[in-house]
């Protein structure tokens, strides 16, 4: 446990020492703000964070891999991975420490964006249920996307490769409903079960980029379902495990 926190604290400090944290936060606030405004500026708009959530999960497809791309690629480039792997650390402690750092950064951004909620309470009367379930869903969605990004970062010493592979996997999981819609029967259902949650129809004012059949739709509506939670936890666990395996495999090469 101590090693995990040592690594997490170091990575969080590195985030703030580089422009990365500030640039990504600014972009996150700008984009989610845009969607939030678009969703509540209607004359008969409902007082909800649906627009904000949609913007956030859409942007995280690119933001999460951008936050994690440095974490393991740079260790390999600088050769410091050799130091980590010859220190009395286990691979999962390295991976978990870095994951926690990236998640902490995302949480900070989410907390910064909570002034949208304040705005809702000042000018309207929002439903607290969907608000809380939406934020819970957003945190779990963030975990899953960060785990995918971290895995992509472990693959090579090139950060850009990490970004492209990470966003690629997340995009594939996002547009999977385009494919499943054109299939029928079990194949369609199985594929649809992997729908990550966002949709590329972000400018559609009805859906606002939350995929109807995806795992985020219920969270946005105020429903917390075990299937959705299990899905995000599984994606997170599987990709963190894969990351650990990639690091372990590095020893055997």
């Amino acid at each position, binding site marked *: 446990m101590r090693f995990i926190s040592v690594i997490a604290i*170091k990575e969080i400090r*590195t985030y703030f020492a580089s422009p990365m944290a500030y640039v990504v936060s600014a972009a996150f606030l700008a984009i989610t703000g845009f969607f939030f405004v678009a969703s509540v500026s209607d004359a008969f708009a409902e007082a909800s964070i649906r627009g904000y959530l949609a913007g956030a999960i859409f942007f995280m497809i690119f933001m999460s891999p951008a936050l994690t791309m440095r974490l393991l690629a740079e260790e390999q480039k*600088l050769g410091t991975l050799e*130091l980590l792997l*010859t*220190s009395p650390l*286990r691979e999962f402690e390295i991976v978990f420490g870095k994951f926690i750092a990236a998640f902490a950064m995302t949480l900070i951004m989410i907390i910064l964006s909570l002034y949208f909620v304040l705005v809702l309470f000042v000018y309207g009367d929002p439903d607290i249920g969907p608000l809380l379930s939406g934020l819970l869903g957003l945190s779990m969605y963030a975990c899953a996307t960060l785990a995918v990004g971290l895995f992509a970062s472990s693959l090579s010493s090139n950060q850009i490769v990490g970004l492209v592979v990470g966003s690629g996997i997340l995009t594939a999981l996002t547009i999977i409903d385009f494919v499943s819609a054109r299939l029928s029967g079990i194949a369609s259902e199985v594929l649809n079960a992997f729908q990550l949650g966002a949709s590329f129809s972000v400018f559609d004012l009805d859906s606002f980029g939350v995929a109807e059949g995806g795992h985020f739709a219920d969270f946005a509506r105020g429903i917390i379902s075990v299937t959705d939670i299990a899905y995000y936890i599984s994606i997170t666990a599987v990709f963190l495990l894969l990351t650990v395996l990639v690091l372990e495999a590095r020893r055997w090469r």
Partner: protein
Amino acid sequence: MIKIEHMSKSYGPYPAVIDVSFEVLKGEIVGFLGPNGAGKTTTMRVVTGFTPPTEGEVTVGGYDVVSHSLEVRRHIGYLPETVPLYLDMTVNDYLTYMGEIRGMNASWVQERLPKVIDMVKLGEYRNTLVGRLSKGYRQRTGIAQAILHEPDVLVMDEPTIGIDPIQVVETRELISNLGEEHTMLLSSHILPEVSAICKRVLVINDGRIVADDKPDDLSEKLQHAERIEISVRGAEAPEFINSMREISSVIDARSDLRASVVQRSEREDFSPFIVDAKPNVQASEQIAKSIIENGWGLTNLTPLPMTLEEIFLELTTEENLDE
């Protein structure tokens, strides 16, 4: 302290180290000598637990590097060939972090850090970003991280590569001093460096250990010829070479092609030569006498140590003769 028995390591189908066995006793400083690609780094990576051996058994302080990897790593300080540094951290932060990763608690780090910084003379740079340090100071930071957690065994891969000559001397001194308290395995491809620091040398070539000896004995055994660098004033090259060849103890003489163009053009009257002579027959004396008799000015006469490449040439040709 380090015990390697019949260790082999292959990367896929390519063998990097083949059936290597040796032991480093407690308090011993062993130099690991070999050309690039000989298997030095691979052997060190196995010893430090970075990569497991394909075959054979390796133990450090009695712990197996595969089954008790964490124990091994706790007892080792390692300086890899490319000094692994986080360029955006200060020296102090970097070393603190490395200490914590090695399992030191905060009070131990606080007590130990100033001592280590003094030892490697990084005092004035403790709050400088590592990325702003010169190569030599980065090397010191690397050494500091290796000794910070007071490891029993120090493994250093090419600790003086790529730093300027003055810093090389200082780094060597630092390493020699460290050798008084640690068991040390140090790799290099420069023989004089190893002779200066180590009491025992292992020569590795093509993944196999080809010699295991004291450094003096090693060069003596291999030195069939004594090589002398000579500069004379007022001598024409052919004339000088002929006069050298007349001396009975001289095997061959030639112009020194290593001398730089600048040196030649700036000081035309000095011609550098290389003379190979039979060992142990006081050839230098006879050469000096001959130069003076010819009325030339002797400005330099230096016996040259053999370079590792030459030792290798010797080792491999001898092996071929045996076959």
